């Protein structure tokens, strides 16, 4: 029987420092055992438990897209024991990943729709996965207009710079990158995500919004979308809670009867409106 | 047991015993190397959980040393610490920790000779106690063939 607690062993292939405060690093993992990559078949929006032997596990959204073969990417913020330990690990070190866990963004059901993708800070990870997947030539024709709004406090805290700069040059995605306050030599937008959203978000007809960001951003962006006429069914969010098992068993990540790990982390606003705000 | 070399965790006040250890070294005073020193700003900083952590992880002895009463860099840190020491000493002894495993001393930064003597005394007594087998966390049984 497949043991869902047992991580797939992986080797750290590459570590990239993402932000100027060095608190975010992107880890590129390669599976040690042939065949594990197929078993780890995932879709954008899912997460995995990163397992450091002897230290513990942390649930992290998958930043790579299933269209990128041969590796998986995770961007990890230095917060607790495991993530701090990971920040001191080197390329070549062995650890584990367990998953994929949770449900992906419902991209299959969103076919034919316009998408507005709103990200704040380092919560952009699974949305990077989503956009990479959407821009794949075999997937792109299935969707309408794609708008990407991405904000961070300062330019140095924006992740995946090369990628969004490349997306910006394309004509099949509208990219709006913003920072909180004006700084010299900044050629993109200045202002908070809700304000930018208000200005650039497409009309709600046949459009769905995917949002991932800090609670304060979500708190102020959600009314902007609702005012613009977005239905709660079409506002799709990804939640976070403290997790351990990732399998809907250990009991701590529940929001009402739903486990963020097993039944989420992706919920529509319509679903969340019927649930306690315990996240 | 004669070749038993104990592991001793030492908590030294930065302003006195730590300096005494330095001076002993500079003065080429010979003392046993069984200590892993943790430098504290003052013995008043010593939380009882530090002692427990040391023993739990298998230390054979713990040695705590600070400034003589009245000489505290922070005026009263070691007076407060002294009361805590009385409690820790009494409680751990009552629970069955050999008092020779938990030692306290006052050594000023000038007392390199006292440091040397005390270091020898601590090691000698911990050696006499033998390895710490009862007041520590047991080694994990991994249950793996590779390290059976």
């Amino acid at each position, binding site marked *: 029987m497949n043991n869902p607690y047992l991580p797939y062993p992986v080797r750290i292939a590459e570590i990239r420092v993402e932000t100027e405060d060095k608190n975010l690093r992107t880890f590129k993992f390669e599976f040690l055992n042939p065949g594990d990559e197929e078993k780890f078949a995932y879709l954008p929006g899912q997460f995995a438990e990163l397992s*450091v*032997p002897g230290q513990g596990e942390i649930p992290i959204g998958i930043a790579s897209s299933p269209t990128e073969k041969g590796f998986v990417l995770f961007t990890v913020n230095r917060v607790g024991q495991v993530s701090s330990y990971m920040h001191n690990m080197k390329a070549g070190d062995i650890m*584990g990943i367990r998953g994929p866990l949770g449900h992906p963004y419902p991209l299959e059901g969103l076919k034919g729709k316009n998408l507005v993708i709103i990200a704040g800070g380092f919560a952009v990870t699974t949305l990077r996965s989503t956009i990479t997947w959407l821009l794949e030539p075999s997937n792109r024709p299935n969707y309408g207009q794609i708008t990407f709004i991405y904000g961070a406090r300062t330019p140095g805290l924006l992740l995946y710079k090369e990628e969004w700069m490349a997306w910006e040059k394309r004509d099949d995605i509208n990219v709006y990158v913003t920072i909180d306050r004006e700084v010299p030599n900044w050629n993109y937008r200045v202002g908070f995500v809700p304000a930018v959203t208000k200005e650039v978000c497409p009309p709600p007809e046949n459009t769905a919004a995917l949002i991932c960001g800090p609670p304060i951003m979500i708190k102020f962006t959600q009314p902007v979308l609702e005012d613009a006429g977005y239905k709660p069914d079409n506002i799709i969010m990804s939640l976070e*809670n403290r997790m351990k098992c990732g399998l809907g068993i*250990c009991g701590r990540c529940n929001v009402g009867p739903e486990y963020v790990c097993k039944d989420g982390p992706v919920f529509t606003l319509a679903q969340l409106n019927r649930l306690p705000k*315990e996240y | 047991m004669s070749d038993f070399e104990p592991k001793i965790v030492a908590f030294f006040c930065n302003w006195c015993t730590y300096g005494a250890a330095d001076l002993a070294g500079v003065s080429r005073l010979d003392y046993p190397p069984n200590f892993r020193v943790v430098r504290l700003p003052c013995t008043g900083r010593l939380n009882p959980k530090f002692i427990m952590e040391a023993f739990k992880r298998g230390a054979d002895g713990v040695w705590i040393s600070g400034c003589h009463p009245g000489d505290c860099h922070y005026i009263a840190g070691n007076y407060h610490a002294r009361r805590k020491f009385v409690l820790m000493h009494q409680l751990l002894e009552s629970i069955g920790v050999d008092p020779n495993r938990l030692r306290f001393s006052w050594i000023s930064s000038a007392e390199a000779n006292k440091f040397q003597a005390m270091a020898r005394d601590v090691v000698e007594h911990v050696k006499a106690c033998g390895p710490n087998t009862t007041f520590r966390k047991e080694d*994990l049984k991994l249950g793996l063939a*590779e390290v059976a």
Partner: protein
Amino acid sequence: MPEYLVKESGLKEFFQSLANGRHLLTPQGTGDKCKLEEAGPDKVNLDYSNTHMSPKSAFFPQSENLMAFHNKSDKPNPFVYQDLGDKAQPTVIFGIRPCDARGLSISNRVFQNDRFTDPYWKGKYEQTIKIGLACASPSPQCFCAAMGGSPYGELGLDVLAFKVEGGLGLKPVTAQGEELIKQTNAAQEDLAQEIKKQEAKAIEAQGVGTDLKPIDDKDLMELFQDPHWTATAENCLNCGVCTFFCPTCHCFDIQDEQSEQGGIRMRNWDTCMSWLFTVHGTGHNPRPSKTERVRQRFMHKLKYIPLKQDGIRGCTGCGRCVVMCPVNIDIREVALKMCQPPAQSQA
């Protein structure tokens, strides 16, 4: 399936034959010392109200090693976690009260949920034959009937045993249970009417309590937002006793520990009463005070689990939390508050 009877004189032989190469756990000791333990078949206590702790630890130990790794670079697979297995062994447990058996079946649907199967639980659950002992005489804290169970309930059991004049009646519930009974000295005997009679009497003695249907009917958010929770939680100490003793509490923490040669990953019982249970890495806590945590526990038992498990309540009425709670928070009183319209529940 037909019922069976073991005469009082044959009880020792019966327990011996139950073991038959398997581990046999039976109720041992009296009062709050009563435990399900492996011991001689002649010391089985059949007059206990219930075991001190629920039988969940036989399937879900308080601390269980899941996997291990070693750090020897010259050996195969360094730093790779390897499964330590479920350590399940063929076992018979005699003397699980019907409330606790019901609890096991509820936990079983969590450990083997719609998406994942917990192999450590599954192995032990499937290798254990569960023989219940019906409760002819309820204790003051008993309320299984009010929660939809019965002192003679069969859910989660392979065999239901019940005391009869001069011996022990046995009612097989599953084929596995019947198979086991056939290997013992129990003889077929028609006791169907006897069980019905005893069950009716036992339920009457317990008193059915108030109908808790209003909780099922009320909307989740209405129950959640009800103002009574502050008062309900006010005397809670936020210890974890209720959760540790509860037959359906299944929450755990996963922890890694290291040694010189490697390390293990283990799981330990955890409790939703703890601040640490839900606190985020950022310091934000979705359930920051005891009010939210107490609400979580009762909502989980009485609303969330029924929503997820076809209406079956997550409390089985064993009453352990009622007795063990240092401040006697009684889930029956809480359930009544949840039943009331908001205006009255504040009083």
